[in-house]
């Protein structure tokens, strides 16, 4: 009987722990958002493979598939407030990468800013 009670107690403790975990999924600023390549869950899992494939095609062969280019991702997913996918803690790329503790080094070289905004700023 005591064993059964202790199991129940452990189970009771587990439920709130699970509940807090699901509520801690990062809230992101998805910018304009929308689904242009594949559905969001697939993209969460596989976007890095698309980007790696795309980068080799572009750099070595000059095949610029605009649909899966990093620039095109940024075009829709940059925040509508600051035109960036990396500027804030809840920015599109930063929020998830920080949650998953995956280093995000694309933007050491690549611009995280929407191109139209960059052009507007740099043509002045």
């Amino acid at each position, binding site marked *: 009987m005591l064993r059964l009670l202790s199991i129940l107690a452990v189970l009771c403790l587990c439920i709130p722990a699970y509940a807090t975990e699901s509520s801690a999924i990062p809230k992101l600023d998805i910018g304009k958002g929308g689904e242009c390549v594949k559905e969001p869950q697939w993209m969460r899992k596989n976007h890095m493979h698309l980007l790696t494939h795309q*980068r080799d095609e572009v*750099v070595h062969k*000059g095949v610029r598939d605009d649909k899966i280019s990093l620039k095109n991702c940024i075009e829709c997913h940059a925040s509508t407030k600051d035109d960036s996918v990396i500027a804030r803690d809840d920015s599109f790329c930063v929020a998830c990468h920080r949650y998953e503790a995956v280093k995000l080094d694309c933007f050491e070289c690549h611009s995280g800013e929407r*191109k139209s905004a960059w052009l507007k700023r740099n043509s002045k």
Partner: protein
Amino acid sequence: MSEINVQRRQFLKMSMGVAAVSIAPGIFLFDMAHGKADANKVRWGMLIETANCAEGCNDCVTACNTENGLSGGVSSTDSQWIRKIEIKDISTGRETSLPMMCQHCEHPPCVDVCPTGASFKRADGIVLVDKHLCIGCRYCMMACPYKARSFVHEPLQNQNPDVPRGRGTVESCTMCVHRIDQGQQPACAVACPNKSILFGNLNDPDSEIATRIRTVASAQVRADLGLNPGVRYQGL
């Protein structure tokens, strides 16, 4: 030497001879170089008319800096993709001004020395650095006889979305590959006020650049190295 061995040697010689001539009709093991470029394959190149290149004019350099987001030499370690140089023939006193940048060699020494395969030549003849693979060892900078490459020493911000650049990698003139892929001309060729930089497909016999290099004398810088640069100079 025994009789059998002599026959064996003759047989081998004869069969090698036959094999050398042809493996099948029309297919040869050894073939003479035809000495003509493959017209179907694009090879981007430039012809620079040094007679029109004005001394003191820096427009190509400025255009390159703006297009590719270079600082233009604010600090001593900043990248430089194209530079203007003034040369003087000591015996005659003739002075020439010309832009110098990556010469986009057919046989690039930077590609030969790269330990990671980051330095590579595209199918259309443009020599690039794949910065995803570059480890910043700078062997290519030492190998380049034109001193065309720069190393990025400091972290960068506010890059052009079309021209990713970052610390720890080597970079050089890309012939504005992002513009070429969109059917545009390199920024320096567009910016030159004297139309001294002619850009085009060297392999297309009807292109303006191919016609020009066929009809006027042009030279490659350090042609003795046999690298066959894609950038040629007229009046050097």
